[in-house]
Structure formats: structure tokens, C-alpha cells
């Protein structure tokens, strides 16, 4: 990445001049806004996590907030619970959302498919809606009181499987995960679909000429080519899932009931930071939770890049 000094054209011209004004012009505005309203606040938050604030007095406490978070009983059980739930939430997305997205993308990209534009538009629609709407709708649909899902299952002869899914500890998180999958399946679908459309026809044709059946064509030609996209989708899912907050907040409130069974890192952060009902919020503890989320996401991405991305890269076209 470090460049040899002898490289030609614009950059050598740049080095001669004291200030490369065109770079400043192009990069300056974006960098200024980004540094001021994103990088600085995030760093400030990291620093804040090393302090404790009591009655307006702030004092440096080092890693004490983190030690409290992972070892003090009052905090640690909530923290580990939120983390475990978050992994469950993520795994459900990986196992359900991305395969469904892949399937829909493959179907949508079938040659000469009629109405593919309409399908694409419709299936992507839930992604466009805000959680305020989505939370309300799904509570209405799943509510045992108004009976929509129950009637539906009744017509399929499955009504004895119906339960107050959103209200039971054992099923609330899974149900919310599925709602989230329903909302966001459009994103992996679109990204994979776009990659599939990008596969040059001649590659596919060549494999057909070589006598590969469609299944083999998919398995040996298309799949390797869309693997980088699937990898990107996975990483986007990971990041999005570990930031998830809105849906849980809209449906279950900040207490993420029943009995914290739907608590994710995002809701835990919110409660710690802003407090809830009679529990007072703490900016410094909140900052500590935010910092841990930051680290978890970072470690997740590093692991991913290290173990997965490296192997996939070579297939890129």
C-alpha cells in the first residue's frame, strides 16, 4: 500500500506542490462532516466509558465500568443474556434470511421470467417500511385476541399449534427474529440478484455447451461467483443484527420482556444509557456498553475477514 515515490503523473505532481488543493477540495467536505459528527463522537464515547459521573462530578475510573459490566451480578447477567440473545438473533438471520434471500434471487434471475420486476418490487417493499409500522402490524397479526393468525392456521388445520408467541419467554425472540427476517429479506435478495445478473452469459453458455446440467451450472459456475456477495451479505447481517434495537423497542419496549428474553445489545445499551422508568440512566455505563458493542462487532468482522473472506477472494471475477 505504501507507494514508491517514483510513481508517475498526478501523485508526483502532488508531491511537488506544498498543498494538493484538488484533494482538499474533493475530500475536505466529506471528511470534515464525517470526522465531526461520527468519528469524534465515537471516540468521545470510548473515552467517556473510562469515567464515572456522580451528581455532575466526573472522575477517571479506568476499566472499572467494564469490570462492573462483566463481573457485577447486577450487570453481568443482563449483559451476557443480551449477548447470547443477540447471537441467537444473528444465527436465525443467517439460517433463514440469507438462504431465503438466495433462493428468491436465484428464482428471480431465471431467464425470461415474466413479472420479475413486479416480484422484485413487491418483495422488497417491507424493507422500506419503518419499524413503527412493522411492529404494529405484526402485533396485530399475531395477537391471540384478534385471532388473525389463529384463523389462518385453523384453515390449514394447524390451529392447535397457535400460541401467544410474542408473549412467551420461549418463543418471543424467535418470533421477533422472523419478523425481522420478513422485513429485511429484500436486501440479500437484491444484492445476490444483482450479482447473478452480472454473471456474463458466455460463462454460463460455455458450461451448458460443455454438457453441464443446470444444477451443475449453478453449483460449479454461479455459486462460486456469488460467494463474495454472500460473504458481504453475511457481514452486513452481522453488523445490522448487533446494532438491532428498533424492532424490539417498538414491539416489546425497552424492558425487552418477557423477563428480558428479547433483550439485545441495542436495547441493553438504551436502558443503560437513558435509564428506564425508575432506573436512572448512566452516560458512562452506557458508553461502556457501547464500547463493548464496538469491540464485539470489530472482533466479529476481523474473524470473518480472517477465516472466510480470504478463502473466497480467489473466486472473485
Amino acid at each position, binding site marked *: 500500500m505504501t507507494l514508491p515515490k517514483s510513481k508517475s503523473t498526478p501523485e508526483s505532481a502532488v508531491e511537488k506542490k506544498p498543498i494538493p488543493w484538488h484533494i482538499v477540495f474533493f475530500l475536505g467536505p466529506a471528511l470534515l462532516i464525517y470526522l465531526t459528527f461520527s468519528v469524534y463522537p465515537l471516540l468521545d464515547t470510548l473515552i467517556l466509558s473510562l469515567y464515572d459521573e456522580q451528581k455532575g462530578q466526573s472522575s477517571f475510573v479506568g476499566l472499572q465500568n467494564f469490570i462492573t459490566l462483566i463481573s457485577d451480578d447486577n450487570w453481568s447477567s443482563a449483559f451476557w443474556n443480551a449477548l447470547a440473545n443477540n447471537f441467537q438473533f444473528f444465527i436465525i438471520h443467517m439460517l433463514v434470511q440469507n438462504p431465503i434471500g438466495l433462493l428468491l434471487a436465484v428464482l428471480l434471475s431465471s431467464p425470461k421470467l415474466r413479472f420479475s420486476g413486479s416480484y422484485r418490487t413487491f418483495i422488497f417493499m417491507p424493507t422500506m417500511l419503518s419499524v413503527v409500522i412493522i411492529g*404494529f402490524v405484526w402485533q396485530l397479526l399475531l395477537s391471540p385476541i384478534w385471532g388473525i393468525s389463529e384463523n389462518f392456521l385453523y384453515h390449514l388445520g394447524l390451529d392447535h399449534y397457535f400460541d401467544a408467541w410474542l408473549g412467551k419467554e420461549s418463543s418471543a425472540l424467535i418470533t421477533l427474529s422472523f419478523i425481522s427476517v420478513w422485513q429485511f429479506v429484500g436486501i440479500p435478495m437484491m444484492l445476490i440478484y*444483482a450479482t447473478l445478473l452480472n454473471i456474463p452469459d458466455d460463462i454460463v453458455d460455455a458450461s451448458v455447451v460443455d454438457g453441464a446440467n443446470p444444477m451443475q451450472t449453478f453449483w460449479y459456475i454461479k455459486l462460486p461467483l456469488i460467494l463474495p456477495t454472500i460473504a458481504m451479505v453475511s457481514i452486513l447481517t452481522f453488523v445490522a443484527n448487533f446494532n438491532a434495537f428498533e424492532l424490539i423497542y417498538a414491539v416489546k419496549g425497552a424492558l425487552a420482556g418477557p423477563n428480558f428474553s428479547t433483550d439485545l445489545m441495542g436495547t441493553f445499551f438504551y436502558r443503560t444509557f437513558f435509564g428506564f422508568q425508575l432506573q436512572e440512566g448512566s452516560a458512562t455505563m452506557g458508553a461502556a456498553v457501547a464500547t463493548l458493542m464496538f469491540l464485539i462487532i470489530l472482533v466479529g468482522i476481523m474473524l470473518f475477514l480472517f477465516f472466510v473472506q480470504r478463502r473466497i477472494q480467489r473466486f472473485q471475477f
Partner: protein
Amino acid sequence: MMISAFKNFNLGRSVPKSVAIHGVLMAYTVIALFPILVVIINAFKERRAIFRDPLAMPTMDSFTLVGFEQVLLRSDFGLYSWNSLVVTLLAVGLVLLLGAMAAWALTEYKFRTNLLITFLFAMGIMIPIRLGTVSILRLMVDLNLVNTLTALVLVYIAQGLPLAVYILSEFIRTIPKELKEAARCDAVSEYKIFFCIILPLLKPAMATVAVFTMIPIWNDLWFPLILAPGEETRTITLGVQQFVGQYVTDWNSVLSALTMAIVPVLVLYTIFSRQLIRGLTSGAVK
């Protein structure tokens, strides 16, 4: 299960195959649209009729517009929509422009801090700006920007830039070198190269960035709630959320409010949808 599905759908160009494909896609379309339809249908029904049979279409007896009347009477939907529109368009527009400029600078020019800045932007894709909320709030107070749309626009630009820079950089890399080299040989200025040659080429990728930047901004609840909760600066998502909180038992009004919030998004999306796919597909390969 997935694999066997592919097997079926990839077998020749037979009629059963296309029926099966349409079957699956149609089934999923129903799953995607059904909940939205439930909201819209019930918005036009009388309160008791909603509870009696939520899936029935409005009839002569049960049809009512009272919910919409209530929404228009009791909340300033026009203002909220306008605020959302201003914030979203300004933020998306600036993300596109500044993002494209930054992406160009980072991919085209070599300078000492290039790698660091690229890395900083890449981090932004992964680390949500929301984690810095406390400091953002303090900052906005110091700048005297709380309860202004400007505060929202600035934060959304900062939020949208990383992804924009990433996608546009990837795209700029695919632009043939010859184009720029030729221009440089003709002694065209760097500014002109960017604005007259590169920027027009970025259009398809910009549509993708626009959609992916627009969705979270339009639907955001967090920053409007914290940075601009005032009546004058309320966005539509916040307005709907507060309206729902306020009239939670009055389902006519709530469903009408939700319907009114759904429609503009769907219209915007339908407009952008074709560009989105064009942008996505023209991304990597040329």
C-alpha cells in the same frame, strides 16, 4: 431442501418449472404484502368492524374515513412529511455528492493519509453512529443546532458517507483508465475530469447508494427523537410514532396514520426501483 429446490427450477425450460417458480415467488409476494394490506384495508373500516373481522374488506356499512379525518385534524402531517422530505433529500443529495468526491479522491490520488482515511470510512460501515449519541447531542448543543433540521441533515450525512464512499470507490475502480488518461493528456483540470467525465458515469451506482441511504434516514426514529423532537421539526416517522403512542386505543386513527406513512415511501420506492437494479447490476463487471 434448498438444493433440491434449485434442482427442480433449473431443469430445462419446461412448463412445470416456470409454474413452480411463479408459485414460489407469488407465495412470497403474498407474505410480503399481506401485512401491509391488512393495515390499509382496516384504515378504511369502522372501529368495531376492525375487531369483528380484521380481514374483511370494508363494506358499505363499515366504510369510514373518520380515522383519516382525525389524523389530519389532530396532527400536522403535511408539516411532518415536508420535514422528512427536506431532511431526506438534502442528506441523500449531499451524501451522493460529497461521497462521490471523497471516493474519487481516495481511489484516484495517492497521498500519505489515504490509507488511514479509507480505513476510517470503512470503520463507519461497521460501527453505527448511534453509539456516539451522547457526544453528538452535546456537540449539537454547543453548535446551537438542537431542534433544527440542519442537525439531522449533518448527522445523516455522517451516517451515510461510509457506505457511499465504499460503493462509489468500488465503482470508480471499474472505470477504464483510458478515459482519465486521455483527458489528462489534453490538460483538462482535475475538477473538470471529475465533474464532467466521472460524475455522470457514476449515476447508476448513485441510485443504489441513494436507496440504501434513503431507507434508514426516512425511517429513523432515534435521532429525530433526541436531536429534533420539537413540533416544528418533527419528521413523519417520529410524528407517526408519537401519534400511535397518543391514540393507541383509537385504531382507526392509528391505522390511518400508518397508511399515510406507508404511501409516500412506496411511491418514492417505485420511482427509484428501476434505477436501483440498474445501479446494482452495473456495479462490478463491465
